[in-house]
């Protein structure tokens, strides 16, 4: 068709321009991490003269990076699993049944996003103390699950509602229970939404630094962002080290994403209703 011929090139230029804006700062961060501070000041945009790995070696020497990494993996994986289970159960209930109180429950969940959770930090601290969870990774997991539930329910409920009911009803007539319908019929069709929730929540729990800052005092229980945060104070004048620290804090997530992205993107397209 006529206008497609005209609009295609425009699409391309536009889409790739935005993509380059998305990528460039990250690239700049990684490139700058190989430079010395002096190099960054004199030629901030140039490629590094040499790929100097000393800064990384130094950083890895002072921080127990593998420990932080394992803590982050454990906390994020468990949090995401619990979020997916609890939220899809609740969202299924809210979206698929029309009890009078469903709207109330839905809104009740949304309320959690409307207050800054930092407001409740003192009662939370006391709660964690009473539950004996201070200085435990489980305090973080519970927080990430609890604060992740509202967003996940918002997304999942929205998508559950768009799904045609016919398939479900067929299964129901075959005598399947609710759990089975959710697991075998609904969830497989909801892969794009579940994928979105999964990745967003994973990132969220991976990158948070507020809760570990407050609940975790043991150095070996820290997660990557909070472990890295102390570096920013110590190296505030050494831009080379700062960029290396930023890269080090971000790299695991980027690598994980590239490993998982193929799966994830495929899930996105397959899940679409044909």
């Amino acid at each position: 068709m006529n206008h497609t011929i005209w609009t295609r090139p425009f699409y391309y230029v536009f889409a790739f321009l935005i993509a380059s804006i998305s990528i460039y700062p990250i690239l700049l961060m990684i490139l700058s991490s190989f430079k010395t501070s002096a190099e960054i000041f004199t030629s901030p945009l140039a490629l590094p003269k040499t790929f100097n790995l000393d800064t990384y070696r130094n950083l890895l020497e002072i921080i127990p990076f593998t420990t932080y990494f394992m803590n982050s993996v454990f906390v994020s994986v468990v949090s995401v699993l619990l979020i997916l289970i609890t939220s899809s159960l609740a969202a299924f209930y809210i979206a698929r049944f029309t009890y009078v109180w469903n709207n109330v429950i839905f809104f009740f969940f949304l309320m959690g996003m409307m207050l800054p959770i930092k407001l409740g930090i003192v009662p939370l601290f006391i709660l964690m103390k009473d539950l004996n969870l201070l200085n435990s990774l489980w305090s973080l997991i519970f927080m990430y699950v609890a604060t992740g539930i509202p967003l996940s329910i918002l997304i999942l409920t929205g998508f559950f509602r768009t799904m045609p009911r016919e398939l479900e009803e067929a299964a129901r007539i075959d005598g399947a229970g609710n759990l089975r319908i959710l697991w075998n019929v609904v969830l497989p069709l909801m892969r794009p939404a579940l994928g979105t929730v999964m990745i967003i929540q994973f990132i969220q729990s991976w990158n948070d630094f507020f809760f570990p800052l407050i609940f975790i005092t043991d150095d070996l229980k820290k997660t990557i962002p909070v472990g890295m945060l102390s570096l920013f104070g110590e190296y505030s004048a050494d831009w080379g080290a700062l960029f290396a620290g930023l890269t080090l804090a971000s790299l695991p997530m980027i690598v994980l994403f590239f490993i998982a992205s193929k799966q994830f993107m495929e899930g996105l397209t397959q899940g679409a209703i044909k």
Partner: protein
Amino acid sequence: MKPAMNSDSVVKLKKQRNWKRWTIHLFPIPALLIYGVFVVYPLFAALTYSFFDWKGIVRGEFVGLKNFKDLFTLEPFSGLFWNAFGHNILYFVLQMIFQNGLAFILAYIIYKKVKGSEFLKIAYFLPRLLSVIVVGFLWKLILNPNYGALNVILEKLGLEQLQKAWLGDPDTALISIILVNCWYGIGFGVLIFLAGLQSIPKELFEAGKLDGADGLPMIRKIILPLMVPSFMIMTVLTFIQSFEAFELVYAMQGSQGEPYHSTDTLAIYFYRLAFGGSAGGSTTAVGLGSALAVVLFIFISFFTALYLRYMQKKQVDM
């Protein structure tokens, strides 16, 4: 839109054993429990702070609504409140345009399967992988007036007159932060809109094409109405996030709303009141801070409820 249950299945449903029907009510319990204990309880416990007089971090006597009254009548508090409120509105508007508007267009382009759409998806999403502190720190370095990349690029392009102290000038500081927020959040928008587009049954497109609708008319007549859930999700989220805007502002400008209150948002203002400014030296006003949080909560929940109501009606109408 939604097909009504046919009467056969209703009869079948009713025949199901009682306990099976009853178990469905267990579904939301785990979420309610965790969420109730770790979010609702501490927040509401803290909301009561707003009714007390506070000396530093020690709770004094019950003062009723005095904190609320002070927040709106006592200078400089009331001036700061409205100043921050205006910034939140700007945050919302700019994010709707530059984040969600762009995200929809980009999602549509990807959906149309241009070459390299896989790459595009990943590219848009990359910034979202970074921690907000990293994003803030990175952009602070990029926007640095003397050594930062942005001003250097402008110089190389011969656009020296556009160089600015981006984060130090009250005219550009907040807008810079909001645009960085859009940079950070656009990938999520693309993802949600893409998921929405992909759950539109293909037959509808075919039917639309047969009717001669394509391009813009296709978007208007078929895509937009079916994308209501995605739009609803993004609008509600953007609304809540803009009025709760904290982390990025904090990472880039600290908790003082510098320069000269030009980057104050309600959540930053709340943080400053409740926890004192950054790096000591500042005093706290826990009562006022909590009162501010309550006001913010009432405002956000009122408009969210209103909007959800409206969207639900709209969906039923269709």
